[in-house]
C-alpha cells in the first residue's frame, strides 16, 4: 500500500474493483454502464455496480452524480465474521484487495466502523503471515491471503529461506542475477511448449 501513487499498478487494480452505486441524475448516452438496460440514456435512480475510480469521479461532482453504497464484504454481517475470527476467511476468494479497497470505502461509511474492522482483521491475520513464512506447505498457507498479505508473506519466506540456508551451508556461492535466471527459465518453458 506504500505505493498508492499515480503510477502504481497495484493502486490502479484496487481502484478497478466494483462498488454498488445509485445514479442521482440522468446521464445521456451512458446507458451502457448498466448491463441490464437497453436504453441509450442512464436514468436517475438506476442501481449499478461500477469501478471505484469511476464512482469516485462521479461522487465528487457538485452536486454528486451517484450515491455510493458499501460493498457487502464491508457490511455488518461480514464484519461480524471478521471481528469474531478473521483467520477463517479466505481473502483470496472474498476480496483480494480487502485492505486497500477498504481504505477507499471507509470514507463512505458514515458509522466509521469499516476502518476498525480493517485494522482488527490485519492484526488477527498477522499470525497467518508468520506461519505462511515458515510453512512447509507454502502453497496451501499462502492460498487464503490477500494480494498484499501474500507479498508480505513471500518476503518473510525469503528471509526464512536465506537464514536456514545460512545455518546449513558453509560458504555462500555467487549466483545468477534474478531477472537473468527468470528470463532463461521462461525461454526454456516457451521452447518446450513449441
Amino acid at each position, binding site marked *: 500500500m506504500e505505493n498508492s501513487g499515480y503510477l502504481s499498478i497495484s493502486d490502479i487494480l484496487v481502484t478497478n474493483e466494483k462498488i454498488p452505486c445509485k445514479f442521482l441524475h440522468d446521464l445521456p448516452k451512458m446507458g451502457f454502464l448498466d448491463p441490464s438496460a437497453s436504453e441509450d440514456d442512464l436514468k436517475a435512480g438506476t442501481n449499478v455496480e461500477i469501478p471505484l475510480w469511476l464512482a469516485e469521479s462521479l*461522487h465528487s461532482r457538485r452536486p454528486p452524480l451517484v450515491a455510493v453504497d458499501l460493498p457487502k464484504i464491508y457490511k455488518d454481517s461480514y464484519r461480524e465474521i471478521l471481528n469474531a475470527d478473521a483467520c477463517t476467511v479466505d481473502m483470496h476468494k472474498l476480496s483480494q484487495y480487502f485492505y486497500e479497497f477498504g481504505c477507499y470505502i471507509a*470514507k463512505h461509511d458514515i458509522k466509521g466502523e469499516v476502518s476498525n474492522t480493517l485494522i482488527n482483521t490485519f492484526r488477527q491475520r498477522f499470525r497467518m503471515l*508468520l506461519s505462511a513464512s515458515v510453512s512447509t506447505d507454502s502453497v496451501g498457507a499462502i492460498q487464503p491471503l490477500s494480494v498484499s498479505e501474500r507479498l508480505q508473506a513471500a518476503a518473510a519466506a525469503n528471509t526464512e529461506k536465506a537464514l536456514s540456508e545460512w545455518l546449513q551451508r558453509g560458504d555462500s556461492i555467487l549466483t545468477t542475477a534474478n531477472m537473468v535466471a527468470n528470463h532463461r527459465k521462461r525461454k526454456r518453458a516457451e521452447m518446450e511448449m513449441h
Partner: protein
Amino acid sequence: MDPYEVEFIGENRIISVIPNFSYDKIYLICGEFGPFRAGLPINVPLWLAMMLKQKQKCRIVPPDWMELDTLENIKEEEKRSRFFTKMPNEHYMVEAKLILGAASEDVPNAAEIKTIIKDIWDIRMSKLRTSMDALMKSGGGYGRLDHLTMMEINSAKPLLPSAMDYLLQIQKKAQQRVQQPSALNTSTFSQSGSSQNT
C-alpha cells in the same frame, strides 16, 4: 540484509588463535596484527582466523563462552525467562557457525556444544515469533528488542517493520475524516525512485 552480510560484520570480532608460524606484524584496514610467533596465542579478527585455519596455519582458541556448563546455564535461563536473556556476545551465532564449522577439532565437546547452541537459537527464534504475534495483536506501536543479536533482529525483517507500517497506512487512510476532492486519475506526481534490487 542477507545473513552473509551480517556474518561479514560479525567476522570483525576479535578472537584468539595459536599460529604455527612466525611472521612480522601485518597492517590491515581494521588494525595492526602481529608479530606472529609460533605457539604463542595472538588476537586477530575472526575472518583472518578462519583464513589461517583453512590454510592450516593456526589452531583456534575457543572463546570463553563456548563451553558446556556456561551454555547449559544460558539455555536454562533462556527457557525460564519470558524475555530475551543476554547472549555471550552480539554475534554468538556467527562465531559458533564459523568456528564449529571450520575448526571443530579445536573445541572440546564440539558436537554437544553445536547442539546446545542450536537449542538456544531455536528457543529464541520461537520466542521472537510469539512476541511478534503478540505485539501485532495488542496493537502496540513499538517492540523492545533488548538482548536480541543482529542476526536475530535481521530475521524479523522485513515482515515485522513492513506489517507495522502497513497497519499505520491503513489507520491513516481509512480514518481520514476530511473528504478530499477525488483525484484518483489526475496526475499529482509524487514519483519515488525505484530502489534497485541486487
